[in-house]
């Protein structure tokens, strides 16, 4: 599967993302691929489990930036709300938002796994 076919499987802002990577599909693909090794979500999971608010905020924030850049809109939206929930002290929202994000991340990783390995 090629990068340009992503939107058949995901809600993704291909145009915006490619513009951010200066139209360089290979670079975009490389960073999508890297999401598989990215530990941010794992760290967010640990933070949610230990209910460490500052860590939840920090990793959700990082994830928000990454997903935003990659044009993965739903995940971007959810991580934004998660950051917001911590800042506004709506702790009751954290768990449900986390679960939504977890599902979105799983979908992303599945679809990305189907991409042709960049640079090959």
């Amino acid at each position, binding site marked *: 599967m090629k990068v340009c076919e992503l939107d058949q499987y995901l809600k993704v802002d291909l145009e*915006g993302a490619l*513009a*951010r*990577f*200066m139209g*360089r599909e290979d*670079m975009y693909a490389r*960073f999508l691929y*890297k999401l598989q090794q990215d530990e941010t979500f794992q760290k967010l999971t640990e933070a949610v489990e230990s209910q460490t608010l500052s860590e939840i905020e*920090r990793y959700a*924030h*990082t994830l*928000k*930036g*990454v997903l*935003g*850049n*990659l*044009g993965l809109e739903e995940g*971007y939206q959810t991580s934004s709300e998660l*950051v917001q929930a911590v800042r506004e002290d709506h702790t009751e929202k954290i768990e449900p938002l986390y679960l939504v994000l977890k599902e979105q991340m799983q979908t992303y990783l599945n679809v990305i796994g189907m991409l042709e390995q960049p640079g090959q």
Partner: protein
Amino acid sequence: MAGTEKNYLLIVDDVEMNRAILSSIFEDEYKIIEAENGQEALKMLEQYDGQIAAVLLDVVMPVMNGFEMLQSMKEHNIGQDIPVFLITADASEKNMYEGYSLGVKDIIEKPFIPYFLKQRIRSVVDLYCTKEQLRETVEHQAEIIEEKVKEVNALSRNVIETLALAIEFRSGETGQHIQNIYQLTRILLRALREKGYPGCELSDEQIEQIATASMMHDIGKIAIPDSILNKPGRLTPEEYEEMKIHTLKGAEMIERMPNVEQNPVFSYAYDICRHHHERWDGSGYPDHLAGEENSIWAQIVALADVYDALVSRRCYKEPFEKEKAVQMISSGECGMFNPELVEVFLKIKENL
């Protein structure tokens, strides 16, 4: 475009993807250097001192975050002439206030559109370049102006000296008199300034201006007929009255010069021409000024004029010895002078 020597762009972000994105946007315009946190970035600012055109700074980073880095830059006066742009996923009001108060030039929210980002950064960097160039231009021009001012001052001193000399030649003298007055006026002014005499808190430049003006003290003599000016022997009372007019004529000449008020030398000269024959007790002429009614510079020139006349050969007299001349001035034989001025004069008499 960035200036020739400032062609580095420093990107500070802990997320590799963010650095890669920014780098790919700017790599055709700048040499890119990257840092993963504030601490690394501070090191780079020092390492690349004077070569960095702009800093793109993330806020949330481990070790040292963006705000801490800005704070540290401020405290240690690092990179204060480099525009810093915050690139953040969290452009909340609070963050924006904090960013701007720490001196960032613009705040750009992630995800951004590269084209707009480029434009915003370019316009600020261009502004900085222009500012820098302007500063250099102004500095350079200031040097030129200073040079020109020196030339003009030297030229105007030459003209004044020539004018004074021409008048002195008419009286059959050598020009030594105006040189002596110039030197003596300078020495006395400096001595009075050192003593802290009121009104003598003058700059070196002002002293130079007054000394230059002192050379003009007798220019009014151009209006005095040869028969009086060069008469050997005593003047009749009528002739003496006419001779006195040289003070008023001199002042009048200065007054009629164009743009007099723009050159302080001429306002000193007006005073000196008119009042270098006044005396401390009010017995001088033409305005019978007494005590401090007369300016200190006119008082100084009056004393210098008398002293130099005493020690010089004139068509009607032989020169006095220096010691004798000093004694005649301090005793009041040649009219009363400001006692404090005389005191200073006695102190510097060894340098005469």
